[in-house]
């Protein structure tokens, strides 16, 4: 039993709890990261690698790196999330340099940006609860914005180009959409 675990309570903020568990070499930390951050981190990775299956491979590598190099996390140099994003980005960039990734890029050059199968608005998906309906309570445009920005790996310039919105308004609209969602959740 670690000394640090004594300070872990249900009140401990999520990031701090994960950081303490990581420092304690408790692998439930990796589970918590996955539970809470996998979608967001996958989004970060997708921004780099563009292919969902590749992104999942990279996330897997990144989670192992996070576990193996957990002692590298220094809270004085930023938040846990910032560190997690850094590890994931580096893993993604490493992936794009790999031979098989380059071959795949060549062969799929003609294909435009990848379609993500289980994004919001896929109405064939089984509706398994009230939360599931959250996204549908948003206007379609906001729904698309949130989905593209937070889950599908599109950068603001890409969203601007895709949705034909001026880059300057992309940020504000995303904020508005998220505020809307917040009001529904709360």
């Amino acid at each position, binding site marked *: 039993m670690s000394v640090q675990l004594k300070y872990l309570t249900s009140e401990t*903020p999520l990031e701090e709890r994960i950081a303490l568990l990581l420092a304690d070499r408790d692998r439930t930390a990796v589970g918590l990261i996955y539970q809470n951050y996998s979608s*967001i981190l996958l989004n970060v990775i997708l921004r780099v690698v563009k292919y969902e299956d590749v992104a999942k491979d990279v996330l897997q590598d990144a989670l*192992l790196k996070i576990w193996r190099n957990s002692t590298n996390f220094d809270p004085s140099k930023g938040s846990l999330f910032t560190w997690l*994003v850094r590890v994931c980005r580096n893993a993604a960039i490493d992936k794009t340099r790999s031979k098989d990734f380059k071959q795949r890029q060549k062969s799929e050059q003609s294909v435009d940006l990848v379609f993500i199968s*289980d994004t919001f608005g896929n109405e064939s*998906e089984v509706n398994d609860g009230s939360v*599931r309906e959250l996204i549908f309570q948003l206007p379609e445009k906001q729904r698309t914005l949130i989905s593209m920005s937070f889950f599908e790996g599109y950068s603001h310039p890409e969203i601007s180009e895709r949705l034909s919105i001026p880059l300057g308004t992309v940020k504000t609209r995303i904020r508005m959409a*998220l505020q809307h*969602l*917040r009001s529904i959740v709360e």
Partner: protein
Amino acid sequence: MNIQEYIASGVLESYWAGELNDEEMQAVDAMAARYPQVADELDELRNVLITLARSQSSSGDNTVIDLVTNTIRDEEKEAFLRAIEEPDTQIKKIRVIPRWSAAAAVLLFLSIAFNVYFFLRMRSAKDDVRKIAAENSKMAYEIESTQQDLGYAELRVAHFLNNDNIHVRLDGSELSPKSFANVFWDKNTNAVFISVDNLPEPPKGHQYQLWAIKPGQAPIDAGIFDHNQLVQELKVIKGSVQAFAITLEEEGGTPIATVDQTYARGFLKKS
């Protein structure tokens, strides 16, 4: 800086979207550390996104986390096995010593056993040597005495067969009826020989003495002799000897025979 404006700028949403670079993210972290409002806003945005993500994620796809968890478990297992292997080698090292000492103990035991065995064998060999040496000297003595006896016997036979000898058999007197002896008297040299055949052991300080008896004369001393020597040459006696007699005298002999101590006597055959 106006915090509300900062929050309203949309930079926090960009933070969660992965839109910011590392440096920008650290700047947001610094703001959150400094302003609790920023920190709270960040947490709330994250919670909404987590809720949203959970609401849309296809249930049952745990491939990524399962693979990661299995890999971590395998690594921990390997690390654990390595950790217990290391003390194991130490244990092995420790075990080497008893193995050596056991071997050494066996060797020592064998050495002691051989030492004891050889010591006992050596001691018994020494005993044997001593016994054999004793037997040898006994045999040597026996051989010597046998040879002496043989020499005497041969000498006696020679005296018997010598034609120059006058043979006189002396028979035991009343004093010692079973005693007897033989005297050979060389006609040419007049030397007297005695064969001590059966005379009792003389008392301590006493010796037998042979006397030559001539008619009308006192017994003539023919010499004292050793009871243990079977055949001995005594004195030269000349003249007409009638008989020989053996008396028991004090050690060193006497010029005058103690006649009443006559043990054996014998007369010359009349030619």
